[in-house]
């Protein structure tokens, strides 16, 4: 298992390098200039100097190699320095946002926690709702519970989050006034009162995302449990005199979780993508909002870095899915 994990980590490196190159080239091909927001009255020679200062006049391959070095070497050094108070980086050039002229990782450090709180909570709640619903729907197939579950899953899955989000805002924030419409990024949790306010402002976006995720995952769980309930080993377990609880929650569940875990692990990175939309609607100043803002002003280093971080997350969760797979199913332990 350990060798397998290490081998998978090794193969992830060329994959990520290739992804980074593709992202870099594609983003570079996109139209727009980093100076599009600079007033036209600024003389050309000043503009040229500005481009030089940003390093934007360099050929794309030079910028790519530089970015690689910064991303994989210099930024981690700054990270270590920040944690341990050392000075490994020695003031080396970081990845700088063309728009705000601050290090991109500083922006990410400010924005990512907002996203993680909302997306992470939503995903966690989504899974927590989905698993029991999926399992019970399968166990009581075609019961009213299963029918209701099917209906809500279909609804939840087919209605996009930007629609449910707006509906929820309209009903619960605007009409009823139960929840705030705007997410306060500066809110620091210091006491029960501020925690309550955090919960209130998270309620709507988390609900939207959690329901969407729960709809998908509960469907997968249901079909997987259904498939396993008909297997011969279930009959064997019953013939051994095992109670229904053991049959369902031990024998069936362990087998059913194998495909579900893949869906859950691989779904998490895509949730970041979905969260970009939700962040816009609920005005959460998260990583998605930062990405959209950077795209709007052709802030290439920020766009490339954030997009690449999404790619890293996808590769990482792929790996996690594979490892969990091996843990759950002895047939695919690779040792």
């Amino acid at each position, binding site marked *: 298992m350990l060798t397998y994990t290490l081998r998978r980590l090794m193969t992830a490196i060329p994959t990520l390098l290739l992804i980074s190159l593709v992202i870099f080239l594609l983003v570079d091909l996109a139209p727009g200039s980093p100076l599009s927001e600079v007033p036209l009255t600024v003389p050309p020679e000043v503009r040229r100097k500005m481009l030089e200062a940003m390093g934007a006049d360099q050929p794309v391959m030079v910028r790519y190699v530089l970015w690689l070095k910064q991303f994989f070497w210099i930024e981690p050094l700054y990270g270590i320095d920040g944690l341990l108070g050392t000075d490994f980086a020695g003031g080396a050039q970081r990845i700088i946002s063309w728009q705000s002229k601050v290090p991109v990782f500083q922006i990410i450090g400010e924005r990512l926690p907002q996203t993680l709180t909302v997306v992470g909570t939503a995903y966690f709640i989504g899974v927590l709702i989905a698993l029991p619903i999926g399992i019970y729907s399968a166990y009581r197939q075609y019961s009213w519970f299963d029918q209701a579950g099917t209906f809500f899953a279909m609804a939840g899955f087919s209605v996009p989050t930007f629609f449910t989000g707006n509906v929820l805002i309209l009903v619960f924030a605007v009409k009823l006034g139960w929840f705030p419409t705007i997410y306060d990024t500066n809110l620091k949790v210091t006491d029960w009162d501020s925690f309550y306010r955090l919960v209130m402002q998270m309620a709507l976006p988390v609900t939207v995302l959690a329901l969407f995720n729960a709809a998908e995952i509960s469907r997968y769980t249901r079909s997987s449990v259904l498939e396993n309930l008909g297997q*011969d080993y279930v009959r064997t377990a019953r*013939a*051994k*005199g095992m109670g229904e609880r053991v049959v369902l929650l031990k024998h069936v569940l*362990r087998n059913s979780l194998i495909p579900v875990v893949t869906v859950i692990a691989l779904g998490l990175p895509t949730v970041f993508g979905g969260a970009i939309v939700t962040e816009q609607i609920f005005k959460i100043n998260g990583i998605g909002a930062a990405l959209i803002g950077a795209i709007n002003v052709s802030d290439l280093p920020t766009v490339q870095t954030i997009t690449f971080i999404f790619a890293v997350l996808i590769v990482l969760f792929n790996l996690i899915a594979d490892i969990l797979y091996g843990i*759950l199913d002895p047939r695919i332990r690779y040792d």
Partner: protein
Amino acid sequence: MADGAAPVLDVRGLKTVFHTRSGEVHAVNSVSFLLRPGELLGVVGESGSGKSVTMMSLIGLLPSPPADVRAGEVLLGGRDLLKIAPRDLQSVRGAKVGFVFQDPMTSLNPVFNVGNQIMEPLLKHKGMTKAQARDRAVELLELVGIPDAAKRLKSYPHQFSGGMRQRVMIAIALACDPDVLIADEPTTALDVTIQAQILELVKELRAKLGMAIIWITHDLGVIAAIADRVMVMYGGQVVEHAPVKELFANPSHPYTRALLKTIPSIAGEREARLQVIEGQPPILTGEPVSCPFRARCSHAMEVCGRENPLRRALDGRPVGEGHDVACHWSSPEVAHA
């Protein structure tokens, strides 16, 4: 085997019905049989004759709905299994009645090691500690002839061959020293040499442990090799029942006779074509009011179409104890050659 001993299992008038869209299917119709301690009862019949459904009905293994065990008594150790609570039935399954199924490739849970699966009933029914259960599991694996048993406890089903898995299944079924072992075509999915090994193993275990066995099969050769008594089923009913020698020497039901003719012979008869029973087994929708075999029977008479024959003793002993048959044609009153 002793004729007079009190039966461990006494099944009377068992009726199981499946509710389907095209109506009620009478899969098991008034099946009665008994099983004495240490005895091996062979149950033969083609696919769909109700063999497996009968045995699964006994201990509530059929999913309900669609199955509905409608009538009858299943007396095991003085208790009627059809009347006790589901929870009590759980303590019978695996403890008093062991089950071995047809396909060892799918009957074990792929994600738990075999030690875990053997120990499960021990922990539940025998109240053993984990250490005790582990010792017993090693013992069981040795009993069914798996070498290096202590190490193999940690192996997963996919690391065993088909024959080995069936041995593990037998170990699970025998874990709690059941009074009755029900083997539902345990050798059908195995190749011939492994079949022979499993048969030998079961004979050996039976001599050693003395449990009663119900052996379901459609292989008459297997029956001849191991059974004490044979019950032939057709269309959800027992059509003939006899001690094994008597059945092979003196088959009375046209279906039994036809079945015996389908066995290919090694000596002679090279010129003759292999015999088959023409036609399909019946679909048992609706209350059975006629002989289920009449459509394929070469001796069918007018009475066969309007009256479902009851089991009738042929040798003076009570039905279910000696040789009996459910057939209008082979009844003593009907004169035939």
